[in-house]
Protein backbone atom coordinates (compact mmCIF):
# COMPACT_ATOMS: atom_id res chain seq x y z
CA UNK A 1 0.00 0.00 0.00
CA UNK A 2 2.84 2.32 0.82
CA UNK A 3 4.16 1.95 -2.69
CA UNK A 4 0.79 2.86 -4.17
CA UNK A 5 0.49 5.89 -1.91
CA UNK A 6 3.98 7.07 -2.70
CA UNK A 7 3.38 6.64 -6.40
CA UNK A 8 0.01 8.29 -6.30
CA UNK A 9 1.06 11.22 -4.16
CA UNK A 10 4.07 12.03 -6.28
CA UNK A 11 1.85 12.74 -9.25
CA UNK A 12 0.44 16.11 -10.18
CA UNK A 13 -3.13 16.27 -8.99
CA UNK A 14 -5.27 15.16 -11.89
CA UNK A 15 -8.76 14.31 -10.77
CA UNK A 16 -11.35 12.74 -13.03
CA UNK A 17 -14.86 11.64 -12.31
CA UNK A 18 -14.95 8.83 -14.84
CA UNK A 19 -12.45 6.59 -16.54
CA UNK A 20 -12.75 4.31 -19.54
CA UNK A 21 -12.59 0.70 -18.46
CA UNK A 22 -13.65 -1.50 -21.38
CA UNK A 23 -13.32 0.03 -24.83
CA UNK A 24 -10.05 1.44 -26.19
CA UNK A 25 -8.60 2.46 -29.55
CA UNK A 26 -5.41 0.61 -30.49
CA UNK A 27 -2.88 2.96 -32.04
CA UNK A 28 -0.87 1.51 -34.91
CA UNK A 29 2.37 -0.06 -33.70
CA UNK A 30 1.38 0.26 -30.06
CA UNK A 31 0.53 -2.46 -27.56
CA UNK A 32 -0.51 -0.68 -24.37
CA UNK A 33 -4.08 0.50 -23.79
CA UNK A 34 -5.90 2.30 -21.00
CA UNK A 35 -4.62 4.23 -17.99
CA UNK A 36 -3.75 3.44 -14.44
CA UNK A 37 -5.88 5.21 -11.88
CA UNK A 38 -6.06 5.68 -8.13
CA UNK A 39 -9.19 5.87 -5.99
CA UNK A 40 -9.70 6.70 -2.32
CA UNK A 41 -11.76 4.06 -0.53
CA UNK A 42 -14.83 4.88 1.52
CA UNK A 43 -16.29 3.19 4.59
CA UNK A 44 -17.90 -0.13 3.72
CA UNK A 45 -16.03 -0.61 0.43
CA UNK A 46 -14.64 -4.01 -0.41
CA UNK A 47 -12.13 -4.71 -3.16
CA UNK A 48 -14.59 -6.99 -5.03
CA UNK A 49 -17.11 -4.10 -5.14
CA UNK A 50 -14.50 -1.64 -6.42
CA UNK A 51 -13.27 -4.29 -8.89
CA UNK A 52 -16.74 -4.86 -10.33
CA UNK A 53 -17.54 -1.16 -10.66
CA UNK A 54 -14.36 -0.60 -12.65
CA UNK A 55 -14.65 -3.84 -14.63
CA UNK A 56 -11.64 -5.45 -13.01
CA UNK A 57 -11.18 -8.94 -11.65
CA UNK A 58 -10.45 -9.60 -8.00
CA UNK A 59 -7.06 -11.06 -9.07
CA UNK A 60 -6.05 -7.80 -10.77
CA UNK A 61 -7.08 -5.45 -7.97
CA UNK A 62 -5.47 -7.67 -5.31
CA UNK A 63 -2.18 -8.01 -7.20
CA UNK A 64 -2.02 -4.27 -7.86
CA UNK A 65 -2.60 -3.53 -4.17
CA UNK A 66 -0.56 -6.01 -2.15
CA UNK A 67 -1.23 -5.90 1.58
CA UNK A 68 -4.70 -4.35 1.28
CA UNK A 69 -7.41 -6.34 3.04
CA UNK A 70 -9.72 -7.61 0.29
CA UNK A 71 -12.86 -7.61 2.44
CA UNK A 72 -12.21 -4.96 5.08
CA UNK A 73 -9.88 -2.34 3.63
CA UNK A 74 -9.37 0.88 5.56
CA UNK A 75 -11.58 3.83 4.63
CA UNK A 76 -9.45 6.61 3.15
CA UNK A 77 -6.88 4.20 1.79
CA UNK A 78 -5.85 4.95 -1.80
CA UNK A 79 -5.76 1.97 -4.07
CA UNK A 80 -4.55 1.41 -7.61
CA UNK A 81 -7.05 0.61 -10.35
CA UNK A 82 -5.02 -1.39 -12.88
CA UNK A 83 -6.92 -0.15 -15.93
CA UNK A 84 -3.95 -0.22 -18.29
CA UNK A 85 -3.24 -3.43 -20.20
CA UNK A 86 -0.63 -4.76 -22.56
CA UNK A 87 -2.32 -6.60 -25.40
CA UNK A 88 -1.40 -10.29 -25.63
CA UNK A 89 1.19 -11.26 -28.24
CA UNK A 90 -1.33 -12.67 -30.74
CA UNK A 91 -2.97 -11.63 -34.01
CA UNK A 92 -5.44 -8.82 -33.22
CA UNK A 93 -8.57 -10.47 -34.51
CA UNK A 94 -11.77 -11.84 -33.01
CA UNK A 95 -11.66 -12.81 -29.35
CA UNK A 96 -8.34 -13.36 -27.56
CA UNK A 97 -8.30 -14.68 -24.00
CA UNK A 98 -5.22 -14.48 -21.82
CA UNK A 99 -5.65 -16.99 -19.00
CA UNK A 100 -2.66 -15.67 -17.02
CA UNK A 101 -4.10 -12.16 -16.79
CA UNK A 102 -7.71 -13.40 -16.64
CA UNK A 103 -8.82 -10.97 -19.33
CA UNK A 104 -10.70 -11.29 -22.59
CA UNK A 105 -9.96 -8.97 -25.55
CA UNK A 106 -12.40 -8.51 -28.40
CA UNK A 107 -10.95 -6.80 -31.49
CA UNK A 108 -13.12 -4.81 -33.90
CA UNK A 109 -12.14 -2.94 -37.04
CA UNK A 110 -13.63 0.54 -37.11
CA UNK A 111 -12.97 1.84 -40.59
CA UNK A 112 -9.21 2.13 -40.72
CA UNK A 113 -8.67 2.00 -36.99
CA UNK A 114 -8.73 -0.87 -34.56
CA UNK A 115 -10.79 -0.97 -31.38
CA UNK A 116 -10.47 -3.41 -28.54
CA UNK A 117 -13.01 -4.16 -25.84
CA UNK A 118 -11.62 -5.91 -22.80
CA UNK A 119 -13.33 -7.64 -19.88
CA UNK A 120 -12.13 -9.47 -16.79
CA UNK A 121 -12.96 -13.17 -16.60
CA UNK A 122 -13.06 -16.14 -14.28
CA UNK A 123 -11.20 -19.21 -15.56
CA UNK A 124 -10.84 -22.93 -14.88
CA UNK A 125 -9.21 -24.42 -11.82
CA UNK A 126 -5.94 -26.39 -11.79
CA UNK A 127 -7.99 -29.59 -11.68
CA UNK A 128 -10.29 -28.50 -14.49
CA UNK A 129 -8.29 -25.96 -16.49
CA UNK A 130 -9.50 -23.89 -19.41
CA UNK A 131 -8.02 -25.29 -22.61
CA UNK A 132 -5.71 -23.10 -24.70
CA UNK A 133 -5.71 -22.96 -28.49
CA UNK A 134 -7.77 -21.82 -31.45
CA UNK A 135 -11.53 -22.31 -31.54
CA UNK A 136 -14.57 -20.26 -32.51
CA UNK A 137 -18.03 -19.31 -31.25
CA UNK A 138 -20.24 -22.18 -32.37
CA UNK A 139 -23.59 -20.85 -31.15
CA UNK A 140 -25.13 -18.40 -28.71
CA UNK A 141 -28.02 -18.62 -26.25
CA UNK A 142 -29.99 -16.16 -24.16
CA UNK A 143 -31.13 -17.45 -20.76
CA UNK A 144 -29.38 -20.78 -21.21
CA UNK A 145 -30.28 -23.92 -19.28
CA UNK A 146 -27.38 -25.47 -17.41
CA UNK A 147 -27.11 -29.18 -18.00
CA UNK A 148 -25.15 -30.33 -15.01
CA UNK A 149 -22.09 -32.39 -15.99
CA UNK A 150 -21.79 -35.71 -14.13
CA UNK A 151 -18.44 -34.75 -12.56
CA UNK A 152 -19.88 -31.55 -11.06
CA UNK A 153 -23.02 -33.35 -9.87
CA UNK A 154 -20.74 -35.85 -8.10
CA UNK A 155 -18.68 -33.08 -6.45
CA UNK A 156 -21.87 -31.50 -5.11
CA UNK A 157 -23.31 -34.83 -3.98
CA UNK A 158 -20.19 -35.41 -1.86
CA UNK A 159 -20.88 -32.10 -0.10
CA UNK A 160 -24.48 -33.11 0.56
CA UNK A 161 -25.86 -30.95 -2.22
CA UNK A 162 -27.89 -32.89 -4.74
CA UNK A 163 -28.13 -30.94 -7.96
CA UNK A 164 -30.89 -31.52 -10.51
CA UNK A 165 -29.92 -32.80 -13.99
CA UNK A 166 -30.77 -29.38 -15.40
CA UNK A 167 -30.89 -25.93 -13.87
CA UNK A 168 -33.35 -23.61 -15.65
CA UNK A 169 -32.64 -19.89 -16.24
CA UNK A 170 -32.86 -17.80 -13.09
CA UNK A 171 -30.85 -16.77 -10.05
CA UNK A 172 -29.69 -20.36 -9.34
CA UNK A 173 -28.26 -20.81 -12.83
CA UNK A 174 -24.44 -20.40 -12.82
CA UNK A 175 -24.39 -19.59 -16.56
CA UNK A 176 -26.21 -16.32 -15.97
CA UNK A 177 -28.29 -14.74 -18.73
CA UNK A 178 -26.05 -15.19 -21.79
CA UNK A 179 -23.85 -17.96 -23.15
CA UNK A 180 -21.52 -18.28 -26.14
CA UNK A 181 -20.84 -21.94 -26.82
CA UNK A 182 -17.33 -22.59 -28.13
CA UNK A 183 -16.43 -25.06 -30.87
CA UNK A 184 -14.46 -27.03 -28.28
CA UNK A 185 -17.29 -29.10 -26.84
CA UNK A 186 -18.26 -28.45 -23.26
CA UNK A 187 -16.62 -25.03 -23.01
CA UNK A 188 -18.58 -21.77 -22.91
CA UNK A 189 -18.12 -18.07 -22.44
CA UNK A 190 -20.99 -17.15 -20.15
CA UNK A 191 -22.30 -14.84 -17.45
CA UNK A 192 -22.50 -15.79 -13.80
CA UNK A 193 -24.68 -15.77 -10.71
CA UNK A 194 -21.46 -15.32 -8.67
CA UNK A 195 -20.03 -11.98 -9.86
CA UNK A 196 -17.41 -11.98 -7.11
CA UNK A 197 -15.79 -15.00 -8.80
CA UNK A 198 -14.50 -12.90 -11.69
CA UNK A 199 -10.72 -12.93 -11.43
CA UNK A 200 -10.63 -16.31 -9.73
CA UNK A 201 -9.77 -19.80 -10.92
CA UNK A 202 -13.20 -21.13 -10.03
CA UNK A 203 -14.80 -22.58 -13.15
CA UNK A 204 -14.78 -26.06 -14.60
CA UNK A 205 -12.95 -24.80 -17.68
CA UNK A 206 -15.52 -22.27 -18.93
CA UNK A 207 -14.89 -18.52 -19.08
CA UNK A 208 -17.13 -16.38 -16.85
CA UNK A 209 -17.82 -12.67 -17.24
CA UNK A 210 -19.66 -10.14 -15.12
CA UNK A 211 -23.37 -10.12 -16.08
CA UNK A 212 -23.09 -6.57 -17.50
CA UNK A 213 -20.01 -7.49 -19.57
CA UNK A 214 -21.32 -10.74 -21.01
CA UNK A 215 -24.39 -8.93 -22.33
CA UNK A 216 -22.18 -6.46 -24.28
CA UNK A 217 -19.92 -9.25 -25.53
CA UNK A 218 -22.90 -11.36 -26.51
CA UNK A 219 -24.43 -8.49 -28.51
CA UNK A 220 -21.10 -7.67 -30.23
CA UNK A 221 -20.03 -11.21 -31.13
CA UNK A 222 -21.38 -13.00 -34.17
CA UNK A 223 -21.34 -16.78 -34.41
CA UNK A 224 -18.10 -18.10 -36.01
CA UNK A 225 -16.01 -15.36 -34.37
CA UNK A 226 -12.52 -16.81 -33.90
CA UNK A 227 -11.46 -17.36 -30.29
CA UNK A 228 -7.81 -17.77 -29.33
CA UNK A 229 -7.00 -18.76 -25.77
CA UNK A 230 -3.41 -18.20 -24.64
CA UNK A 231 -1.51 -18.20 -21.38
CA UNK A 232 0.94 -15.27 -21.29
CA UNK A 233 1.95 -14.18 -17.75
CA UNK A 234 4.72 -11.85 -19.02
CA UNK A 235 3.70 -9.23 -21.53
CA UNK A 236 5.89 -6.61 -23.15
CA UNK A 237 4.67 -3.80 -25.30
CA UNK A 238 5.32 -0.22 -26.25
CA UNK A 239 3.44 3.02 -26.15
CA UNK A 240 4.68 6.45 -27.00
CA UNK A 241 8.31 5.32 -27.35
CA UNK A 242 8.42 3.62 -23.96
CA UNK A 243 8.73 -0.14 -23.48
CA UNK A 244 6.56 -1.66 -20.74
CA UNK A 245 6.58 -4.99 -18.94
CA UNK A 246 3.40 -6.39 -17.36
CA UNK A 247 4.13 -9.36 -15.12
CA UNK A 248 1.49 -11.60 -13.57
CA UNK A 249 1.89 -14.45 -11.13
CA UNK A 250 2.51 -17.43 -13.39
CA UNK A 251 1.29 -20.96 -12.88
CA UNK A 252 4.00 -23.34 -11.68
CA UNK A 253 4.06 -25.22 -14.96
CA UNK A 254 4.36 -22.18 -17.21
CA UNK A 255 6.93 -20.09 -15.31
CA UNK A 256 10.31 -21.30 -16.65
CA UNK A 257 9.20 -21.51 -20.27
CA UNK A 258 7.43 -18.15 -20.22
CA UNK A 259 10.39 -16.46 -18.53
CA UNK A 260 12.71 -17.84 -21.17
CA UNK A 261 10.45 -16.39 -23.87
CA UNK A 262 10.37 -13.00 -22.12
CA UNK A 263 14.15 -12.80 -21.73
CA UNK A 264 14.68 -13.79 -25.36
CA UNK A 265 12.37 -10.98 -26.51
CA UNK A 266 14.07 -8.45 -24.23
CA UNK A 267 17.57 -9.46 -25.42
CA UNK A 268 16.43 -8.95 -29.02
CA UNK A 269 15.14 -5.46 -28.15
CA UNK A 270 18.41 -4.68 -26.34
CA UNK A 271 20.47 -5.79 -29.33
CA UNK A 272 18.35 -3.77 -31.74
CA UNK A 273 18.55 -0.63 -29.57
CA UNK A 274 22.31 -1.13 -29.02
CA UNK A 275 21.82 -0.13 -25.38
CA UNK A 276 21.71 -2.07 -22.17
CA UNK A 277 18.35 -2.74 -20.56
CA UNK A 278 17.83 -2.07 -16.88
CA UNK A 279 17.67 -5.76 -15.96
CA UNK A 280 17.28 -4.95 -12.28
CA UNK A 281 14.05 -3.16 -13.11
CA UNK A 282 12.91 -6.09 -15.25
CA UNK A 283 13.58 -8.54 -12.44
CA UNK A 284 11.81 -6.33 -9.89
CA UNK A 285 8.70 -6.06 -12.06
CA UNK A 286 8.78 -9.80 -12.65
CA UNK A 287 9.19 -10.60 -8.94
CA UNK A 288 6.49 -8.16 -7.82
CA UNK A 289 4.02 -9.46 -10.44
CA UNK A 290 1.59 -6.61 -9.81
CA UNK A 291 -0.07 -7.05 -13.20
CA UNK A 292 0.39 -3.43 -14.22
CA UNK A 293 2.51 -2.19 -17.16
CA UNK A 294 5.83 -0.98 -15.74
CA UNK A 295 8.05 1.27 -17.94
CA UNK A 296 11.39 -0.48 -18.36
CA UNK A 297 13.08 1.13 -21.36
CA UNK A 298 13.06 4.30 -23.43
CA UNK A 299 13.12 2.98 -26.98
CA UNK A 300 14.38 6.18 -28.63
CA UNK A 301 16.91 7.61 -26.21
CA UNK A 302 16.64 11.28 -25.34
CA UNK A 303 13.23 11.66 -26.93
CA UNK A 304 11.94 13.08 -23.65
CA UNK A 305 8.92 10.84 -23.85
CA UNK A 306 7.59 9.71 -20.52
CA UNK A 307 5.49 6.86 -19.24
CA UNK A 308 1.81 7.77 -18.72
CA UNK A 309 1.02 8.71 -15.14
CA UNK A 310 -2.00 7.45 -13.17
CA UNK A 311 -4.94 9.72 -12.64
CA UNK A 312 -7.07 10.03 -9.53
CA UNK A 313 -10.69 8.97 -9.98
CA UNK A 314 -13.46 10.24 -7.74
CA UNK A 315 -15.40 7.70 -5.70
CA UNK A 316 -18.81 7.07 -7.30
CA UNK A 317 -21.92 7.64 -5.23
CA UNK A 318 -22.86 3.99 -5.59
CA UNK A 319 -20.72 1.12 -6.73
CA UNK A 320 -22.29 -0.81 -9.57
CA UNK A 321 -23.34 -4.30 -8.51
CA UNK A 322 -22.56 -3.81 -4.82
CA UNK A 323 -24.76 -6.26 -2.86
CA UNK A 324 -27.68 -4.53 -1.22
CA UNK A 325 -28.70 -5.36 2.33
CA UNK A 326 -32.43 -5.08 3.00
CA UNK A 327 -33.66 -3.30 6.13
CA UNK A 328 -34.19 -5.36 9.28
CA UNK A 329 -37.68 -6.65 9.99
CA UNK A 330 -38.83 -8.03 13.33
CA UNK A 331 -41.24 -10.44 11.68
CA UNK A 332 -38.51 -11.94 9.47
CA UNK A 333 -36.33 -15.04 9.93
CA UNK A 334 -32.57 -14.80 10.34
CA UNK A 335 -29.51 -17.04 10.59
CA UNK A 336 -26.81 -16.46 13.19
CA UNK A 337 -23.74 -17.14 11.05
CA UNK A 338 -20.96 -16.30 13.53
CA UNK A 339 -20.26 -14.88 16.97
CA UNK A 340 -16.66 -13.70 17.19
CA UNK A 341 -14.62 -11.36 19.36
CA UNK A 342 -12.82 -9.62 16.53
CA UNK A 343 -14.72 -6.88 14.68
CA UNK A 344 -12.71 -7.21 11.47
CA UNK A 345 -13.22 -10.96 11.43
CA UNK A 346 -16.98 -10.42 11.78
CA UNK A 347 -16.98 -7.78 9.03
CA UNK A 348 -15.01 -10.13 6.75
CA UNK A 349 -17.43 -13.01 7.34
CA UNK A 350 -20.41 -10.71 6.66
CA UNK A 351 -18.80 -9.38 3.46
CA UNK A 352 -18.03 -12.89 2.19
CA UNK A 353 -21.62 -13.98 2.86
CA UNK A 354 -22.92 -10.85 1.10
CA UNK A 355 -20.87 -11.72 -1.99
CA UNK A 356 -22.20 -15.23 -2.38
CA UNK A 357 -24.12 -16.07 -5.53
CA UNK A 358 -27.06 -15.71 -5.34
CA UNK A 359 -26.37 -13.14 -2.60
CA UNK A 360 -27.20 -13.78 1.05
CA UNK A 361 -27.60 -10.50 2.94
CA UNK A 362 -25.57 -10.33 6.14
CA UNK A 363 -24.58 -7.69 8.67
CA UNK A 364 -22.63 -7.33 11.90
CA UNK A 365 -24.36 -6.82 15.27
CA UNK A 366 -21.97 -5.47 17.92
CA UNK A 367 -22.47 -7.02 21.38
CA UNK A 368 -20.80 -6.05 24.65
CA UNK A 369 -17.91 -8.48 24.21
CA UNK A 370 -18.35 -9.94 20.74
CA UNK A 371 -19.65 -9.33 17.24
CA UNK A 372 -22.43 -11.34 15.72
CA UNK A 373 -22.84 -11.95 12.00
CA UNK A 374 -26.52 -12.20 11.20
CA UNK A 375 -27.70 -13.31 7.78
CA UNK A 376 -31.14 -12.22 6.63
CA UNK A 377 -33.88 -11.07 6.64
CA UNK A 378 -35.61 -14.13 5.20
CA UNK A 379 -39.32 -14.26 4.44
CA UNK A 380 -39.93 -17.66 5.98
CA UNK A 381 -38.37 -20.57 7.80
CA UNK A 382 -37.63 -22.59 4.68
CA UNK A 383 -35.75 -19.65 3.12
CA UNK A 384 -33.71 -19.26 6.31
CA UNK A 385 -33.00 -23.01 6.45
CA UNK A 386 -31.95 -22.97 2.80
CA UNK A 387 -29.55 -20.10 3.50
CA UNK A 388 -28.16 -21.99 6.52
CA UNK A 389 -27.62 -25.04 4.31
CA UNK A 390 -25.80 -22.93 1.71
CA UNK A 391 -23.61 -21.42 4.42
CA UNK A 392 -22.73 -24.92 5.58
CA UNK A 393 -22.06 -26.39 2.12
CA UNK A 394 -20.28 -23.44 0.56
CA UNK A 395 -18.53 -21.79 3.52
CA UNK A 396 -18.54 -24.51 6.18
CA UNK A 397 -20.42 -22.17 8.53
CA UNK A 398 -22.74 -23.77 11.08
CA UNK A 399 -25.56 -21.26 11.14
CA UNK A 400 -28.35 -21.13 13.71
CA UNK A 401 -31.81 -20.33 12.38
CA UNK A 402 -33.51 -17.50 14.32
CA UNK A 403 -37.31 -17.40 14.42
CA UNK A 404 -39.20 -14.10 14.05
CA UNK A 405 -39.73 -11.86 17.07
CA UNK A 406 -43.27 -12.35 18.37
CA UNK A 407 -45.10 -9.03 18.35
CA UNK A 408 -48.01 -8.81 20.82
Amino acid at each position, binding site marked *: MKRVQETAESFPSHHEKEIERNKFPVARGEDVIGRLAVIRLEKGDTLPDIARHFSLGINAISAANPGVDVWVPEAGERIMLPLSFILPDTPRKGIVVNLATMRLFQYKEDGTSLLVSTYPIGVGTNERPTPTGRMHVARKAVRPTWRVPASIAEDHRKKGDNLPAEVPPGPENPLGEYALYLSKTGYLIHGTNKPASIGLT*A*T*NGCLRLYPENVKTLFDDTPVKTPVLIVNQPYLIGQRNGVLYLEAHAPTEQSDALELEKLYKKLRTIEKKARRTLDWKKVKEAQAEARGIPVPIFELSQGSGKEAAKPIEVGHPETLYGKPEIPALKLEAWYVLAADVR*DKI*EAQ*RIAAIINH*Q*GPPIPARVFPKSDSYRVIAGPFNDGSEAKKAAKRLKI*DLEIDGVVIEPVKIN
Partner: protein
Amino acid sequence: MRKSLLLISMMLVLATLMIGCATTGDLEKVQAQQKQIDAKADQALRDAQAAKTAADAARVKADETSVRAESAMKAAAEEREKAAAEREKAVAEREKAAAEKEKMADEKAKKAGAAFEKSMKK
Protein backbone atom coordinates in the same frame (compact mmCIF):
# COMPACT_ATOMS: atom_id res chain seq x y z
CA MET B 1 101.43 35.14 91.52
CA ARG B 2 99.88 33.61 94.64
CA LYS B 3 97.21 36.28 94.56
CA SER B 4 96.36 35.35 91.05
CA LEU B 5 96.18 31.70 91.90
CA LEU B 6 93.96 32.41 94.86
CA LEU B 7 91.68 34.51 92.76
CA ILE B 8 91.42 31.81 90.21
CA SER B 9 90.71 29.21 92.84
CA MET B 10 88.04 31.35 94.41
CA MET B 11 86.45 31.92 91.09
CA LEU B 12 86.46 28.21 90.39
CA VAL B 13 84.90 27.42 93.77
CA LEU B 14 82.26 30.07 93.22
CA ALA B 15 81.56 28.80 89.80
CA THR B 16 81.28 25.29 91.08
CA LEU B 17 78.89 26.38 93.79
CA MET B 18 76.83 28.32 91.35
CA ILE B 19 76.61 25.37 89.01
CA GLY B 20 75.54 23.08 91.80
CA CYS B 21 72.66 25.36 92.85
CA ALA B 22 71.30 25.71 89.28
CA THR B 23 71.27 21.97 88.70
CA THR B 24 69.15 21.15 91.74
CA GLY B 25 66.50 23.77 91.00
CA ASP B 26 66.39 22.96 87.40
CA LEU B 27 66.07 19.27 88.06
CA GLU B 28 63.03 19.78 90.21
CA LYS B 29 61.58 22.04 87.60
CA VAL B 30 62.29 19.55 84.86
CA GLN B 31 60.96 16.75 86.96
CA ALA B 32 57.77 18.70 87.49
CA GLN B 33 57.59 19.43 83.86
CA GLN B 34 58.16 15.77 83.06
CA LYS B 35 55.36 14.79 85.33
CA GLN B 36 53.07 17.19 83.61
CA ILE B 37 54.18 15.97 80.24
CA ASP B 38 53.76 12.42 81.38
CA ALA B 39 50.30 13.19 82.49
CA LYS B 40 49.65 14.85 79.19
CA ALA B 41 51.10 11.87 77.42
CA ASP B 42 48.97 9.56 79.43
CA GLN B 43 46.01 11.64 78.58
CA ALA B 44 47.05 11.76 74.94
CA LEU B 45 47.59 8.07 74.99
CA ARG B 46 44.27 7.53 76.50
CA ASP B 47 42.79 9.92 74.02
CA ALA B 48 44.57 8.20 71.17
CA GLN B 49 43.52 4.86 72.47
CA ALA B 50 40.00 6.08 72.74
CA ALA B 51 40.24 7.61 69.27
CA LYS B 52 41.64 4.39 67.92
CA THR B 53 38.99 2.44 69.65
CA ALA B 54 36.41 4.85 68.30
CA ALA B 55 38.01 4.71 64.87
CA ASP B 56 38.16 0.98 65.00
CA ALA B 57 34.56 0.91 66.07
CA ALA B 58 33.69 3.39 63.36
CA ARG B 59 35.62 1.37 60.82
CA VAL B 60 33.88 -1.77 61.92
CA LYS B 61 30.63 0.06 61.74
CA ALA B 62 31.56 1.51 58.37
CA ASP B 63 32.64 -1.87 57.18
CA GLU B 64 29.42 -3.34 58.38
CA THR B 65 27.50 -0.50 56.73
CA SER B 66 29.48 -0.94 53.59
CA VAL B 67 28.80 -4.64 53.60
CA ARG B 68 25.17 -3.95 54.24
CA ALA B 69 25.13 -1.25 51.55
CA GLU B 70 26.89 -3.53 49.12
CA SER B 71 24.51 -6.25 49.96
CA ALA B 72 21.60 -3.84 49.62
CA MET B 73 22.98 -2.54 46.35
CA LYS B 74 23.53 -6.04 45.12
CA ALA B 75 20.04 -6.95 46.16
CA ALA B 76 18.70 -3.83 44.46
CA ALA B 77 20.68 -4.59 41.33
CA GLU B 78 19.41 -8.12 41.44
CA GLU B 79 15.90 -6.76 41.90
CA ARG B 80 16.40 -4.37 39.02
CA GLU B 81 17.81 -7.13 36.86
CA LYS B 82 14.97 -9.37 37.85
CA ALA B 83 12.45 -6.61 37.16
CA ALA B 84 14.13 -5.83 33.82
CA ALA B 85 14.15 -9.50 32.96
CA GLU B 86 10.50 -9.72 33.93
CA ARG B 87 9.73 -6.63 31.88
CA GLU B 88 11.68 -8.07 28.94
CA LYS B 89 9.87 -11.34 29.40
CA ALA B 90 6.55 -9.51 29.55
CA VAL B 91 7.44 -7.48 26.44
CA ALA B 92 8.57 -10.65 24.66
CA GLU B 93 5.39 -12.37 25.75
CA ARG B 94 3.30 -9.41 24.60
CA GLU B 95 5.19 -9.35 21.28
CA LYS B 96 4.78 -13.09 20.97
CA ALA B 97 1.08 -12.77 21.77
CA ALA B 98 0.72 -9.91 19.26
CA ALA B 99 2.58 -11.92 16.64
CA GLU B 100 0.43 -14.92 17.44
CA LYS B 101 -2.68 -12.76 17.21
CA GLU B 102 -1.51 -11.31 13.90
CA LYS B 103 -0.62 -14.78 12.65
CA MET B 104 -4.01 -16.06 13.74
CA ALA B 105 -5.74 -13.09 12.09
CA ASP B 106 -3.75 -13.75 8.90
CA GLU B 107 -4.60 -17.42 9.05
CA LYS B 108 -8.26 -16.60 9.64
CA ALA B 109 -8.21 -14.16 6.71
CA LYS B 110 -6.51 -16.77 4.50
CA LYS B 111 -8.93 -19.44 5.63
CA ALA B 112 -11.87 -17.13 4.95
CA GLY B 113 -10.39 -16.26 1.54
CA ALA B 114 -9.91 -19.92 0.68
CA ALA B 115 -13.48 -20.73 1.81
CA PHE B 116 -14.74 -17.84 -0.30
CA GLU B 117 -12.85 -19.03 -3.40
CA LYS B 118 -14.22 -22.52 -2.88
CA SER B 119 -17.74 -21.12 -2.56
CA MET B 120 -17.38 -19.36 -5.91
CA LYS B 121 -17.21 -22.66 -7.84
CA LYS B 122 -20.29 -23.87 -9.65
